[in-house]
């Protein structure tokens, strides 16, 4: 009996973990490019869920089409974000970027609430959400979709980063802009690309997650903090680390929520963040080869 419970919880944890992994990857990509954190990221994730809601639940579009639209919208948002917000404050101190993105995040979240209301909206699952029963463990198809789509996105990202020079270009740009330029790398293009891919991942994650939770509801800052926590847990400078960190974080959250209490889960997650920051700032899975 307790084993079934455990597997149920683990499965739920892996599902949440997938979302955290995607978010963590989004933070990682931006971090290795500008050595800074986009505090509006979580709001964009939430936005992905809302756009998905509008397309699927309201406009009745096919969910694959909607997902594609959302991912592309994320890319466009990333491009606009980089041009209008990141670029003007490129050479400012670290804090300026943090506060600016925080402010823009507020704008996005409040703007979203004007369009979609401030209540959390329930979203239709991608396919008929009848749970399969595997040895007593209920497997919801939506969770499988999340797993599959996350895998797809992660593999796609990994292939892109490993087989192109993009990843190296990003690190080079973060380390030394001038030197990067001298190597033929255009820091502006790299920066654009980083935000395009980061926000695309973010909106994508938001949409595939929304049928399980809700869309909207002023959760932007929570996504931001949890995505960051996942990245830090695994090592924000490593793409594999960030992904694994997000997964692990999801599992830890599910374990706590499932076996201890739902009420204090949020506070528990925050304590995890503080613990990691103070004890393990390098992360667990720092893969040396990526340095």
């Amino acid at each position, binding site marked *: 009996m307790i084993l079934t419970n455990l597997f149920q919880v683990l499965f739920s944890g892996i599902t949440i973990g997938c979302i955290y992994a995607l978010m963590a990857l989004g933070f990682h990509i931006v971090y290795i490019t500008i050595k800074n954190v986009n505090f509006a990221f979580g709001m964009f994730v939430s936005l992905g869920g809302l756009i998905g809601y509008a397309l699927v639940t309201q406009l009745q579009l096919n969910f694959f089409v909607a997902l594609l639209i959302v991912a592309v919208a994320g890319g466009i948002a990333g491009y606009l974000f980089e041009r209008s917000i990141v670029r003007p404050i490129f050479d400012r101190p670290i804090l300026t970027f*943090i506060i*600016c993105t925080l*402010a823009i995040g507020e*704008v996005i979240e*409040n703007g979203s609430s*004007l369009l979609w209301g401030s209540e959390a909206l329930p979203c239709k699952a991608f396919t008929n959400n009848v749970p399969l029963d595997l040895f007593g463990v209920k497997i919801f198809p939506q969770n499988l979709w999340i797993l599959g789509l996350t895998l797809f996105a992660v593999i796609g990202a990994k292939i892109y980063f490993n087989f192109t020079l993009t990843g190296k270009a990003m690190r080079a740009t973060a380390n030394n802009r001038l030197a990067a330029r001298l190597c033929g790398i255009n820091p502006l293009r790299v920066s654009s690309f980083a935000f395009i891919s980061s926000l695309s991942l973010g909106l994508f994650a938001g949409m595939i997650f929304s049928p399980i939770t809700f869309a909207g509801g002023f959760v932007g*800052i929570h996504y931001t903090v949890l995505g*960051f926590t996942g990245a830090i847990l695994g090592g924000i400078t490593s793409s594999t680390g960030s992904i694994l960190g997000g997964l692990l974080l999801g599992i830890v959250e599910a374990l706590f929520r499932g076996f201890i209490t739902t009420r204090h889960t949020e506070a528990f997650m925050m304590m995890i963040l503080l613990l990691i*920051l103070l004890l393990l*700032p390098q992360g667990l899975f720092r893969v040396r080869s990526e340095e």
Partner: protein
Amino acid sequence: MFGTIRLKELLIYAFGVSLFFSFIILANIKWLDIGIHVGIYFIVATGLTILLGMAGQISIGHAAFFGIGAYSSGLLTSTWDLNFWIAGPLSVIFAGIGGYLVGLTSIRLRHDSLAMATIAFQVIFSVLVYEWVEVTGGPAGFGNIPVPSIGTFKIDTETKYFLFVSIIALGVFLFSRNLISRRIGRVLISIRENEVVSSSIGINVPKYKLKVFTLSAMYAGVGGVLFAHYARFISPTSFTIHFSFAFLVMVLVGGRRHILGAFFGSIFVTILPEFLRLVSSFSLFPVSLREIFTNYTYHLIIYGLLVYFSLVLLPKGIYGLGVSVFQKRL
């Protein structure tokens, strides 16, 4: 720089004093209420200005310190019947302890991680007051917070409370000004600009980070105590991260490099909604825009955009704008 801007400061003081007296003379409940809020937020924002503007440390969780002050004082006086003049200062100390804990994390963390850590503390606080129903009343909050009293004299009208808050705000301001214009101010600014170099002059950077976080939190605690005993009923919704953001707006838009920035910032954030509402109520005002001017969500969007623009265009905030306008005239 610190001793030479006499005339500009004088003008601002004149403005402040006239504002104060206009509130008193008006004696309009609504405006006194606004004035009290301005005063309270001014105190909190000043603390945040010292932390962020002077020492360069980020805190996206100041509402938590504000809340510690409010909840502590409220609980100590209502549930435990403690005298306000003991409960208040005690609550400020509690807020300071909270600041100290956050300060501990600031010693080793970079700005981005520190920002996240302050959010974490804020969320932990919010969850705490929300869930610990037996003590804090949970989401419903709790009331019956007594007014402050000196013997038989009760500070129970808006006018009296406004004077009360104003006196404390003035004291806070003078204390802060003295602090910043001397040794400590230079030390904090030096830390903000370059921690490594600061240690090469002998400054124990961790010690000062701890102290400034503690001090800044205590300011917020003072604000919280004043808030609790004015509203006399508090609930978790007044101490969320959105409030923390509001405090940041006050500091950033008002001008984070100068101690008077908090003054303009708190006025701005408190009065802007009122002002917009007033403007939109004119009959000549286009109806289509009326929604924007009255809906609070739009205000929040405006705040966000203002913070962004002020960081990009006006590093010195409203205060800086006034200064440069003034300088051009000379």
